[in-house]
């Protein structure tokens, strides 16, 4: 056999096989220059083939910026994306359900095309890194042979449909959402009505309202299982939400329907897709998610349009075909149910049992979490875990949004043996869903947008807490830490008890990795509240911040209150004061380690950056003004906390003006202090010239200021003011980045 295409021809779904063939042809056309790079980029993204850090052929090696001379001969796979540069392959796993056979195939692919590592994402996907694009068609065929498609894993389409990993075995669920998540995923995959979105569309399902597993309120569309009695008959349906999302500025989803009957689920999703495709933003990527459309139209008008659209749809048998089977959906355990009673318990078992085992609603069965540090497991571990799954759980294993895996339908009597087997393969860490189980996006390790090393920090925190896990106070054990490498929130920092997202600061011409500390998010009740940034701390001081916050929580917690309530009771000013001293950065000479990121010995800042006399003065002034902007935005947060929404809005706006004026002063020292002049000058000098443009986000952050200036709010609500304050924080971060770019650009001029 000369190719997998030939070898697997009778095992692949013909349609998925044809997809891979079409993609391979498109690759050839692109190589020949007969397909535009932007079109090709979207084409590959819709097949899960993503770019990766350094794929523009540039990498700073700690001393200088190196040109990586890939042998691509000018061929690109997208704008500024070199063909031969390694990339990432995302693999969709609907509702996280994966079989042992699929696990083995994934392990083979990780070894042969990637780096031998499988990474579980916060949306139940797998990711393989360092994959060469030429290998991707064969990789897709090998996945197709075991029933997996990468179609629409990225790009402007319906992404992986997620669901609570306990669906079907949960003690609190209203009903098992698995068949609905599966049908929704299959129905929308490649559907003509989901091909013309301006941005991605994420769907999630949860079996209950109280617990966080589905994270419904942070999704574009989310359904919570509900039942009601109609004409004496129990009827299934969904409390349907729309327009949620994290990203740079998080939005809580709005209630679309308190009870959407099950038969209306798929037609409503289809109608919603059509409305989104028709009316959603297409040109301004930064405002193209459905959350912006819902915010613009208002949920009532959006609902009216969707229902109107639904009425016009041509009947599709797939809407209802699965419904008869849905209530009967059942997974098959491999062993008889038996209680954990009298079996010998190996060392470490109790600790693992306490945090990683969930007793199913079916007596005698349990679900066991397999904690994956940083969401990673090796190909060998994956293969071994496939065998362990077969032995103890049959076909029943799922990925989780906390970057772990979960074996279901394990006979309780088998738990000690299961623990021993997991221990043998290095997968028996306790602490699933606890403070040790830190979630982190790929960050600077592989993501093009990463600012600071989220995985480096997560690993540091994880290692440090794991050594003292047994002694950690119970109140602290249950906290969630989530880390993103930038403001985009792939690590879900907004919904953590303690969240961090990566930023950078320049101190005397050296760059220093920082993290914004985000407090007050709520993981429970399907991610019911989002936290706010409290201040940016050097990356190397974050573990100390964590120690202080948790120590204070243990010391001053009242009557078993949650961390979120504690933050709210203590107040943001006092919370910030707990670590304000740690926000300072020691000089490069005093502590050079502050100028490198966690797990990466390269100097973070550009070591050869110079500072001329003129630049030095301006930099000093701008630093002063930027500090003022940061202070004002913090005061805005305090107003928000006091429920003074107009006050929060006013200060958030002022903070943006202050940061904009700081930049203007680098060119026009005597800029008058009035909004009109500041906005005009800022637009002329920094927006129209694209100096303020973020490499990936473009003019998005500048628009936050323009929008607030041009359309001041007529009414103030918690939602609108919260958003404005978030936007102000991001505007300030963008101003810092802009200032750094300007300083870098000045160096060659002075040389």
């Amino acid at each position, binding site marked *: *056999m000369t*190719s*997998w295409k030939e*070898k697997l021809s009778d095992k692949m779904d013909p349609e998925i096989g044809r997809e891979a063939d079409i993609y391979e042809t498109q690759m050839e056309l692109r190589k020949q220059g007969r397909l535009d790079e932007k079109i090709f980029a979207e084409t590959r993204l819709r097949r899960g083939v993503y770019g990766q*850090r*350094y794929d523009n052929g540039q*990498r700073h*090696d*700690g*001393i200088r910026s*190196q040109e*990586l*001379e*890939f*042998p691509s001969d000018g061929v690109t796979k997208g704008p500024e994306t070199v063909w*031969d540069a*390694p990339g990432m392959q995302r693999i969709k796993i609907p509702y996280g359900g994966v079989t042992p056979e699929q696990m*083995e195939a994934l392990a*083979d692919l990780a*070894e*042969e095309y990637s*780096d*031998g*590592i499988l990474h579980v994402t916060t949306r139940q996907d797998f990711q393989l890194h*360092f994959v*060469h694009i030429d290998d991707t068609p064969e990789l897709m065929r090998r996945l197709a042979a075991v029933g997996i498609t990468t179609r629409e894993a990225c790009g402007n389409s319906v992404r992986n449909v997620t669901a609570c990993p306990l669906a079907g075995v949960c003690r609190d669920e209203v009903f098992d959402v698995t068949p609905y998540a599966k049908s929704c995923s299959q129905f929308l995959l490649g559907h003509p009505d989901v091909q013309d979105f301006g941005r991605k569309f994420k769907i999630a399902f949860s079996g209950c309202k109280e617990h966080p597993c589905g994270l419904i309120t942070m999704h574009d569309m989310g359904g919570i299982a509900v039942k009601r009695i109609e004409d004496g008959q129990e009827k299934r349906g969904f409390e349907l939400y729309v327009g949620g999302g994290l990203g740079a500025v998080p939005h809580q989803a709005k209630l679309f329907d308190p009870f959407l009957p099950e038969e209306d689920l798929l037609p409503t999703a289809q109608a919603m897709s059509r409305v989104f495709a028709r009316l959603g933003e297409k040109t301004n990527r930064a405002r193209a998610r459905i959350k912006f459309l819902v915010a613009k139209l208002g949920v009532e008008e959006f609902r009216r349009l969707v229902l109107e659209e639904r009425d016009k749809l041509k009947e599709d048998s797939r809407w209802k075909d699965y419904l008869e089977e849905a209530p009967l959906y059942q997974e098959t355990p491999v062993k008889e149910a038996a209680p954990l009673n009298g079996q010998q318990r190996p060392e470490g078992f109790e600790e693992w049992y306490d945090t990683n085992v969930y007793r199913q609603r079916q007596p005698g069965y349990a679900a066991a979490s397999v904690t994956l*540090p*940083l969401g*990673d*497991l*090796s190909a*060998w*571990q994956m*293969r071994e875990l496939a065998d362990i799954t077969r032995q103890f759980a049959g076909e029943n294993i799922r990925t989780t949004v906390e970057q772990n895996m979960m074996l279901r339908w394990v006979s309780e009597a088998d738990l000690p043996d299961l623990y021993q087997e997991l221990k043998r*393969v*290095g*997968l028996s860490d306790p602490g699933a869903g606890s403070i040790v189980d830190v979630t982190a996006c790929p960050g600077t*390790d592989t993501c093009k947008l990463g600012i600071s090393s989220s995985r480096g920090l997560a*690993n540091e925190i*994880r290692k440090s807490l794991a050594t003292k896990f047994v002694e950690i106070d119970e109140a602290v054990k249950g906290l969630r830490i989530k880390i993103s490498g930038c403001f985009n929130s792939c690590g879900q920092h907004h919904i953590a008890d303690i969240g961090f997202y990566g930023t950078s600061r320049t101190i005397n011409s050296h760059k220093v990795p920082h993290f914004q500390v985000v407090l007050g998010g709520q993981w429970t009740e399907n991610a019911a509240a989002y936290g706010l940034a409290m201040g940016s701390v050097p990356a190397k001081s974050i573990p100390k911040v964590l120690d202080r916050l948790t120590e204070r929580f243990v010391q001053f917690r009242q009557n078993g209150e949650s961390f979120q309530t504690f933050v709210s009771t203590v107040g943001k000013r006092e919370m910030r004061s707990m670590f304000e001293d740690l926000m300072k950065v020691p000089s490069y000479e005093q502590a050079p380690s502050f100028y490198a990121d966690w*797990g*990466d*010995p*390269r100097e973070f800042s550009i070591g050869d950056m110079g500072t001329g006399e003129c630049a030095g003065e301006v930099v000093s002034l701008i630093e002063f003004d930027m500090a003022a902007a940061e202070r004002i935005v913090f005061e805005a947060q305090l107003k928000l906390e006091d429920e003074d929404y107009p006050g929060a809005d006013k200060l958030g706006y002022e903070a943006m003006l202050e940061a904009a004026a700081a930049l203007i002063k680098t060119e026009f020292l005597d800029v008058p202090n009035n909004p009109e002049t500041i906005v005009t000058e800022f637009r002329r000098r920094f927006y129209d010239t694209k100096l303020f443009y973020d490499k990936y986000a473009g003019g998005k952050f500048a628009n936050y200021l323009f929008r607030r200036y041009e359309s001041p709010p007529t009414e103030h609500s918690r939602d609108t003011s919260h958003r404005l304050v978030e936007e102000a924080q991001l505007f300030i971060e963008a101003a810092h980045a802009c200032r750094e770019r300007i300083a870098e650009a000045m160096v060659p001029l002075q040389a």
Partner: protein
Amino acid sequence: MELQRLGFKLFVDDPAKVALENFVPIFHSWIQKQIIEEHLLIDVHNYGHVRQGPGVLLVAHQGNFSMDLGGDRLGLFYYRKRDIDGSSLERLTTILKTTLRACTLLEAAPELAGKLRFKTDEILIVANDRLHTPNESATYQAFKPLLSQLFAELFGEGTFTTEWREDDRERFAVTVSANQSVEVGQLIERLS
């Protein structure tokens, strides 16, 4: 038989003497100097938190280098990712030479002075391509003459044995065991 994506692993003599994280700055310094001939070195990743994973990985366009933890044994594993020209024997020799050179560089790293030594009496060969080199007897039979030729040059006729382990889930791999362990540098000389 299409032999392209092959790899060699040399094991560390006394793993207790070296900490895995020590290899992170060393590999970064290799990128700064682009120290490996005919390779574009790209990035470094520490997967020390994962059992039997790539340990500390140095990603290159042509092939990856790692202080690998596979089989729970620390060793330098180099495997080729992109095709190279030449006969099968020439390719094998080129890949082995690259592996040995990486080992000598590590042994010479000042950060590891006196702590790191690679054993040469046991070398693992892995074919990272289940399509063209399936883990089956026929592959071993086809591969054996090549290995005999290569390792006779390296160790001398009749001084080594080859062992293949049948496991259709794992990649095709052969362990070559020699009578004695010599310096890595000597092996490079013998291949020149």
